[in-house]
């Protein structure tokens, strides 16, 4: 049992069941009072029949004036539930005595009612009182019961989750005291005409005890939450004073309105404490936002209560509202706090606190349905199975739906984000990876500010004002400031989600990098094979052919091999660098051939990069052109002119060697393969014959 009660959920369930049991007790009591089968109301100082509620009262017409019961005059004051507000101790004693007499009559076998109809004709009806029917209980009875249960439940909910918080402790005590004052009120409101005067007195006193003690706990709550203004020890005098007030009332000493005065004083302390709390949060927008909600919820309830119920009697006026309905104001207060828990993290609670409620609702549904089915007449075993079946089929899907509505509403699922995460991981450059990741974080949380940080893990900072998202792979960690453009706080759920997202992204990224590593390794292997086998043989060939024209062919083959291996690199090459490489190679070759190279290129080159494959292709084309010129024309000078803009790269090569008409050139392997390679890049090769020279122009589009 002790272990059972150690868990907040079970503690709360126990309290809830106790509330329900108390309600059941009150209902049982109310329905076991003798009933005349009609409800009464006071209008224009007369007691009238408001409604006939059961068969035994059918003889009396609604609207009839009730004159006497068993010969005893009935007065409007007999039905006054708020007699304590207007009568002094002596008046109350007389009131209780009348109630005792009436109650004794109602408990008799028969009761004789004298009543007057519309025409003032007096009738006498003999009624056998029957137990009260459930449906005839007044609305006020139900309202008060509901408020009592709910307020205790809500405050207990906060308390079981934050048992060490002084604010929560005072909150739960106030909820308990509210219930202590609510139940007697409900009992008083359950009467049809009269209750035992002794019982009524006991109920009234209990109600007063609860009310003063409520004042003695609600004022400390404001003194202790959110900031502890006064040490809890120093607040003990409040309940002591409340007890003193109550004992005075019990002993019928002093002023009848002392408890009201005490309540008014407690409210005043609450307001002052609230003002001080408010001033203390001057510099803290977050705490102030949370306090604003808390004060709004509590103060609206308390103010309405004070204005309608507490202040009028102090000025000798009647309360503006019946005590029963005044309990609704408490409900505003407690429900307001319950609703604020998530958004404003009241008592430092978060949306997870709602989970416990859904669980409770499930348990309650099962029990309630079981009771209903047994009441309908089903056997207990069958009813329990049926209940579980119905709850399983209806309640749990509903709960899931509700949870989604309350908590998960705007959080997209991992599944829906997976394509986006892959897009980030496979983005072409680290910069675009970063841009996409930042965009995703912005879209998910809509922060006012997004800064890189060096955080190692995800976390909520400053009570939800900021959230850390850990870094992953090459992406830095971030701190997000002010969720929802400042309209929301980050929840612990947000942090967990973001951290999981970043972890997932890291996994995808490492998948990408191992893929790339695999590709690189394979390239390396191919490169090494080419190097070790073909390269070594080609070199041998070059040595053997030394001094023959074919040595050049072998050398070109070696260069092409190098180009091919270089093209397996994945990194794009800036155009400037590619041109420098080609120029260096052409330079070296012309130097060996005793030919002068004149290389011209734009001063300002476009900032484009060539894919390795493109660089390799163009490199071998330029090489081929130079080779052909050196081989066939034996020139003194080769002119290379490079012009490039953002769209086209154009290389024009001409030489001053022996000129043959290009039309007579055999479209041999060299020319064909050059054309083919350029066409592969959507480019072309022009041969432009001029008078004293031949110009070859290679053109490729740059993307």
């Amino acid at each position, binding site marked *: 049992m002790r272990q059972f009660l150690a868990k907040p959920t079970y503690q709360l369930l126990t309290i809830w069941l106790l509330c329900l049991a108390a309600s059941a007790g009150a209902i049982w009591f109310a329905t076991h009072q003798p009933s005349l089968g009609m409800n009464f109301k006071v209008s224009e100082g007369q007691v009238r029949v408001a409604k006939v509620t059961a068969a035994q009262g059918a003889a009396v017409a609604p609207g009839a004036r009730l004159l006497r019961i068993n010969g005893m005059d009935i007065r409007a004051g007999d039905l006054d539930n708020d007699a304590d507000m207007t009568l002094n101790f002596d008046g109350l004693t007389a009131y209780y005595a009348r109630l005792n007499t009436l109650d004794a009559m109602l408990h008799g076998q028969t009761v004789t009612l004298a009543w007057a109809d519309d025409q003032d004709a007096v009738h006498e009806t003999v009624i056998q009182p029957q137990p009260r029917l459930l449906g005839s209980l007044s609305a006020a009875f139900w309202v008060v019961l509901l408020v009592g249960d709910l307020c205790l439940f809500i405050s207990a909910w906060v308390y079981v989750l934050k048992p060490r918080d002084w604010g929560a402790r005072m909150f739960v005590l106030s909820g308990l005291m509210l219930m202590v004052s609510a139940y007697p009120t409900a009992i008083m409101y359950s009467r049809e005409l009269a209750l035992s005067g002794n019982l009524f007195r006991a109920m009234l006193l209990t109600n007063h005890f609860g009310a003063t003690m409520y004042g003695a706990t609600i004022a400390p709550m404001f003194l202790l939450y959110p900031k502890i203004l006064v040490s809890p020890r120093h607040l003990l005098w409040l309940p002591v004073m409340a007890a003193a007030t109550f004992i005075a009332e019990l002993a019928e000493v002093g002023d009848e309105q002392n408890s009201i005065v005490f309540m008014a004083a407690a409210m005043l302390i609450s307001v002052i404490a609230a003002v001080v709390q408010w001033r203390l949060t001057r510099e803290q927008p977050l705490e102030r936002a949370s306090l604003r909600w808390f004060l709004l919820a509590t103060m609206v309830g308390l103010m309405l209560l004070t204005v309608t119920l507490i202040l009028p009697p102090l000025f000798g006026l009647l309360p503006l509202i019946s005590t029963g309905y005044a309990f609704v104001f408490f409900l505003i207060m407690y429900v307001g706090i319950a609703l604020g828990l998530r958004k404003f993290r009241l008592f430092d609670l978060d949306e997870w606190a709602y989970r416990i409620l859904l669980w409770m609702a499930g348990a309650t549904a099962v029990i309630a349905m079981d009771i209903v089915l047994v009441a309908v007449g089903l056997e207990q075993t069958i009813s329990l199975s049926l209940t579980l079946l119905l709850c399983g089929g209806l309640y749990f899907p509903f709960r899931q739906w509700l949870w989604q509505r309350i908590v998960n509403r705007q959080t997209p699922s991992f599944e829906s984000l997976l394509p986006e995460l892959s897009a980030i991981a496979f983005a072409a450059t680290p910069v675009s990876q970063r841009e996409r990741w930042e965009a995703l974080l912005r879209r998910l949380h809509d922060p006012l500010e997004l800064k890189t940080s060096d955080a190692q893990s995800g976390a909520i900072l400053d009570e939800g004002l900021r959230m850390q998202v850990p870094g992953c792979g090459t992406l830095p960690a971030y701190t997000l400031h002010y969720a929802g453009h400042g309209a929301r706080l980050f929840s612990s759920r947000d942090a967990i989600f973001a951290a999981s997202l970043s972890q997932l992204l890291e996994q995808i990224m490492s998948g990408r990098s191992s893929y790339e590593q695999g590709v690189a390794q394979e390239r390396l292997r191919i490169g090494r094979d080419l190097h070790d086998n073909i390269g070594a043989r*080609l*070199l041998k060939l070059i*040595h053997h052919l030394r001094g023959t024209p074919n040595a050049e062919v072998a050398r070109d083959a070696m*260069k092409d091999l190098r180009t091919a291996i270089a093209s397996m690199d994945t990194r794009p090459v800036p155009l400037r*660098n590619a041109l*420098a490489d080609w120029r*260096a190679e052409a*330079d070296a070759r012309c130097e060996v051939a005793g030919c002068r190279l004149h290389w011209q290129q734009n001063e300002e080159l476009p900032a484009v990069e060539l894919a390795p494959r493109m660089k390799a292709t163009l490199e071998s084309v330029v090489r081929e052109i130079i080779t052909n010129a050196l081989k066939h024309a034996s020139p003194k000078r080769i002119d290379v002119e490079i012009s490039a803009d953002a769209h086209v790269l154009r290389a024009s090569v001409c030489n001053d060697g022996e000129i043959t008409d290009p039309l007579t050139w055999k479209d041999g392997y060299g020319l064909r393969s050059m054309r083919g390679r350029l066409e592969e890049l959507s480019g072309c090769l022009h041969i432009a014959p001029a008078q004293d020279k031949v110009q070859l122009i290679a053109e490729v589009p740059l993307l």
Partner: protein
Amino acid sequence: MKVVLILDDMPESQEMLREVAQKAFPGICSCCVADVAGALTMLRQFQFDLALIDLSLPDGNGTTVIEAMATRFPDCVIVVATIFDDDEHLFPALRAGAHGYLLKDQAPEQMVKQLRGITEGHPPLSPSVARRLLDHFRVEHESPEDVAAEDILLTPREREVLVQLTRGISIADIGEVMSISRHTVSDHVKNIYRKLNISSRAEAALRAKGMGLV
């Protein structure tokens, strides 16, 4: 240049390199070995001014020899003789202390020219490799204070030459671009190397990058 170590496992290459070294530095004494073990033994017995070292050898990698050589003879010019200039092969060697590299498939006359460049203060290193080296070691360039100091150290003309040098243009072409003789360019280059305490185009490129010149 008095003694050269030639490390190559292909006899034809060995022969060719010996010829090239002789032509570049007449009267030089060549010491030829075909494996790492042989080279390391030689290192312990003789002193070398120049080393032409192939990388893939039957009993290991030429880089081992380069390291030993650079430690033992800091003044020795170490040149890698290879058929490939890819990062994978070359960078570890340059890191280990090689000053330049020769592509063995080139015409021998060209290799001779390149080796002769050593006496003028620029060991053979193609601009393409220098630039890739630069990209590769980008992260390692020095702190801004040093950079500022070096920047002041160089004359405006020298800075101009340095910029051209890193673009991969030959000494002769630099002269043409700047309208000065190739000898003047060579002098500038020597001064740059001396002032920056470097000995290769690759290092020059790195420093130029560090200074924000390129």
